[in-house]
């Protein structure tokens, strides 16, 4: 007669003896930014394929939660869309290395009947629209930039992210850089108080994209990866050099390459000066302890991030992230070398 209990017990014992034959893989844990999540999933998967002795468990709970958990040492590394500031570093109470791991750009998406992509927009006009001073699509300021385009007499609906996000930080950082009025009235942040009377908030990139696609007359900012994979109309934005450029992997990388020596205190790359660069882009950051609390994880953590900022970047483009430019990679590698093993 088959005795399930004895069978189970027997199997368990057999397994118990068999298990030590395989060394349990070292599990590194991280938490933070949701923006990094798709890229991390990809990079860490590739890494585990090549190094079966290490697995990485990353929880995308948001930058705030990431900084919190990292500061309390409950995870091996954190990730945040905006680097930790002096106050947050003081609260953590231990030395931290912050390196850029992901580079992204943002496009200005709009929905106008009969007008395909390529509407020209200047920083002034963009700020005016988001401040609520330009409220109609046939405003003279817009018409002057787009001769030959028949702009409709339609009210502008401003669409923004309703959830706190690094995307909003980069976008408001850009507006603050190009418009003194925006800087004084609104400022930069992951959530801001939107001044335009016609503004509505959508949750996540999909929320903003959905609202723009459904609302004739809408304009909003959407992450590059999302913009390229959805059939949306987006604007040519005038950069600091006066050129009108589309957001692409190349123009965003060009912007990043203008500033190789970025650091956690000087990290903004919006409104870059070179003629081929797209002006709205920015980094997301990994937070690493100089001396990991769990000493046995130190070497693996160091190797993992060394790989993430160099070889791992090769996978970025295929999922809509911009690979870190070579000179930024070099800076990051130098910083990671400062970790104690």
């Amino acid at each position, binding site marked *: 007669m088959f005795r399930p209990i004895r069978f189970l017990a027997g199997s368990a014992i057999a397994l118990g003896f068999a298990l030590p034959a395989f060394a349990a893989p070292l599990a590194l844990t991280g938490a933070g930014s949701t923006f990094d999540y798709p890229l991390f999933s990809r990079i860490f998967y590739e890494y585990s394929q090549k190094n079966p002795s290490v697995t990485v468990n990353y929880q995308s709970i*948001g930058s*705030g939660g990431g900084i919190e958990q990292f500061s309390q040492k409950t995870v091996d590394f954190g990730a945040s869309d905006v680097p930790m500031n002096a106050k947050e570093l003081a609260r953590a109470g231990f030395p931290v290395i912050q390196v850029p791991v992901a580079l992204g750009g943002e496009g200005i998406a709009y929905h106008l009947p009969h007008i395909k992509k390529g509407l020209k927009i200047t920083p002034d006009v963009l700020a005016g629209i988001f401040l609520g001073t330009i409220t109609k699509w046939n405003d003279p300021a817009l018409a002057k930039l787009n001769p030959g385009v028949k702009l409709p007499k339609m009210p502008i609906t401003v669409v923004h992210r*309703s959830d*706190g996000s690094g995307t909003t930080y980069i976008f408001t950082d850009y507006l603050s850089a190009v418009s003194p009025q925006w800087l004084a009235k609104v400022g930069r942040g992951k959530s801001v108080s939107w001044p335009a009377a016609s503004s*509505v908030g959508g949750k996540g990139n999909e929320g903003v994209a959905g*609202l723009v696609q459904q609302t004739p007359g809408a304009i909003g900012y959407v992450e590059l990866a999302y913009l390229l994979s959805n059939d949306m109309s987006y604007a040519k934005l005038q950069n600091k050099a006066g050129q009108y450029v589309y957001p692409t992997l190349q123009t965003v990388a060009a912007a990043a390459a203008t500033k190789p020596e970025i650091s956690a205190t000087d990290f903004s790359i919006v409104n870059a000066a070179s003629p081929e660069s797209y002006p709205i882009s920015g980094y997301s950051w990994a937070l690493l302890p100089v001396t990991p609390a769990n000493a046995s994880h130190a070497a693996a953590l160091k190797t993992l991030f060394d790989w993430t900022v160099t070889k791992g970047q090769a996978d970025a483009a295929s999922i809509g992230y911009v690979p870190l430019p070579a000179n930024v990679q070099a800076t990051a590698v130098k910083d990671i070398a400062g970790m104690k093993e």
Partner: protein
Amino acid sequence: MPARGLGRHAFMSIVKAAVAVFCLVLLGLFLVLLVGSWPSLRHFGLRFLWTSRWDPVANVFGGLPFIYGTVVSSLIALLLAAWVGILSALFLAEFAPRQLSGLLGILIELLAAVPSVVFGLWGLFVLAPVVQNVIGPALQAVFGFLPFFQGVIYGVNMLTASLILTLMIVPTVMSISRDLVAGVPGRYREATLALGSTRWEAVRYVVLPMVKPGVFGACMLALGRALGETIATTMVIGNRPSISASLFAPGYTIASAIANEFTEATSNLYISALIELGLLLLVISILINAAGRLFLARISREGGPA
């Protein structure tokens, strides 16, 4: 017998413990929210309740638009859902053929099993355009003289949110009310009919008064769900922290604000302000419930024996 006494004793202890657990959880929740929102309570005081500026960059927080959006969207939803729910419950329990009633009942109850994110997506991609292009203009054409239906019609707005909430809470009202109506003993109806009343009169004067407290309870349960609903409202309400009389303008609810902003909130005061919103939601739920009970007690007294 001692064994029997022991059993009863044990049973009573378990029953009391079960109740105590709920009370402790509620109390604990309240305390945790109170502690978490302390920095904000101290910094903004009562101003938090009636100021409207929500500016994370300047660290200035006022909760009024969220309170307004939560209460208004939920009350509109309850108003619509109560009518639809109670009337359909009456139809299913009293007037529909038995087989049809069973089938329709299951269909409506299935609505309750749909995850709220699905309601949200459907609301954003299907209902919002319909509100913007069909329902909104129609309401504006007929009731445009009322301030509730004036101004630019957005797709994502208070009305869309209220409609989605209505759909989500109708099953609660309907399902409980139907069971209550079906539970009224048949002899009461027969007695009323024997006195010469019509079928409708039996329902109106005998069945409805009997189930009134229970139906009211169902509405409160439904309201609780509407007040706390997060993801579906977030997707269709427009997330604009401002107060507008027009239902065509976007709004914001407490639960949506917490869901939207909590993950990326980094300053202490900011987190604390969000927790204070959570505390307010708890207080609002309790207040509305209490007000409802007082109202019920009053109408029951005036309406004679219920």
